[in-house]
């Protein structure tokens, strides 16, 4: 008993207790609710419940929410990432344009633009995407890289469908004439895809080369939130997105 009393006199122990039982439940719960997609009502609901209950019950209740976050929040997030609702899709727009040398700073900026162009979607394959963007930027005659959360319908038109066992290296993907299609895990599922130019949609971009026109046209017709990275023959990189909140 005596050591316990001595501990209580120590200000650091007292501070730890105050943080753990006073501040931590709210902080921990705020971290846990991040398992849910951004607009999920459970995020606010759990916080509302926390501050309405007795102070002493909060730590235990927050601990119980780990299960809620893991078994309800994470599946909801996965589902959200797999299928973006249509209302998230907007008019295609330019997110960023980069030129000159393909330094690591520029690569990071392009990846950041890709992330901005896919709001609410987690880029699980960021490392692979970085490699693909690097190869696209270094492609001799320019390139088109299409990134979307799920497999695009255009994959049915692809000239060379790929799977994980394909012997094609990342560099060889961009040697093919056509776009490279990847998902947000960084998995390439098609290369050499001809992006069809829709005559009714070319008014979206009256300037720019054939790649730019094809990218704008593709984005306008896409059924999910998509980012297209266009690399011109003179190494100018344009990042385009059709996301509403980009």
């Amino acid at each position, binding site marked *: 008993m005596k050591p316990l009393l001595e501990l209580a006199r120590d200000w650091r122990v007292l501070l730890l207790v105050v943080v753990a039982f006073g501040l931590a439940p709210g902080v921990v719960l705020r971290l846990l609710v991040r398992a849910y997609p951004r607009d999920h009502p459970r995020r606010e609901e759990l916080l509302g419940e926390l501050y309405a209950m007795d102070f002493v019950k909060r730590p235990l209740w927050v601990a119980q929410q780990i299960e809620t976050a893991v078994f*309800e929040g994470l599946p909801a997030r996965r589902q959200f990432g797999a299928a973006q609702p249509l209302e998230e899709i907007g008019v295609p727009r330019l997110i960023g344009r980069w030129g000159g040398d393909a330094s690591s700073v520029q690569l990071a900026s392009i990846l950041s633009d890709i992330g901005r162009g896919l709001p609410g979607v987690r880029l699980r394959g960021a490392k692979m995407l970085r490699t693909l963007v690097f190869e696209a930027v270094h492609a001799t005659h320019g390139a088109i890289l299409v990134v979307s959360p799920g497999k695009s319908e255009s994959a049915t038109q692809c000239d060379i469908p790929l799977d994980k066992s394909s012997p094609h290296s990342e560099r060889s993907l961009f040697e093919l004439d056509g776009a490279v299609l990847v998902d947000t895990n960084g998995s390439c599922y098609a290369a050499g895809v001809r992006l069809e130019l829709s005559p009714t949609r070319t008014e979206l971009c009256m300037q720019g080369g054939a790649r730019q026109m094809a990218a704008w046209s593709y984005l306008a017709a896409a059924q999910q939130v998509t980012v297209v990275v266009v690399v011109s023959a003179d190494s100018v990189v344009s990042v385009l997105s059709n996301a509403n909140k980009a």
Partner: protein
Amino acid sequence: MRLTYSLLQVALALSRDVVGNHWGYELSKASGVRSGVLYPILERMLKDDWLTDGWEDPPADSRRPKRRYYRLTDKGRDQIGALTQQAAVDARFASIFWFAQ
């Protein structure tokens, strides 16, 4: 909706006040069902139109976030009545009714 022990406990907790608002934490306490199981059940009930939901008007003197409430619909009241009757003759759920007496 498949009749389970947890679903029945939540249904019984809801049926204690068929016209009022229910809160997640209060339901968890009343039913004895932990949050990780309760919230998916409430979500299914919302989807099947057994419940409606909304956000409370917080008291003027309080700065806490709004709570979400759940309220039984007419369909929900009927379904919960049917569910309780079905469970009452099912031996698996005898203990719930025995403790409730």
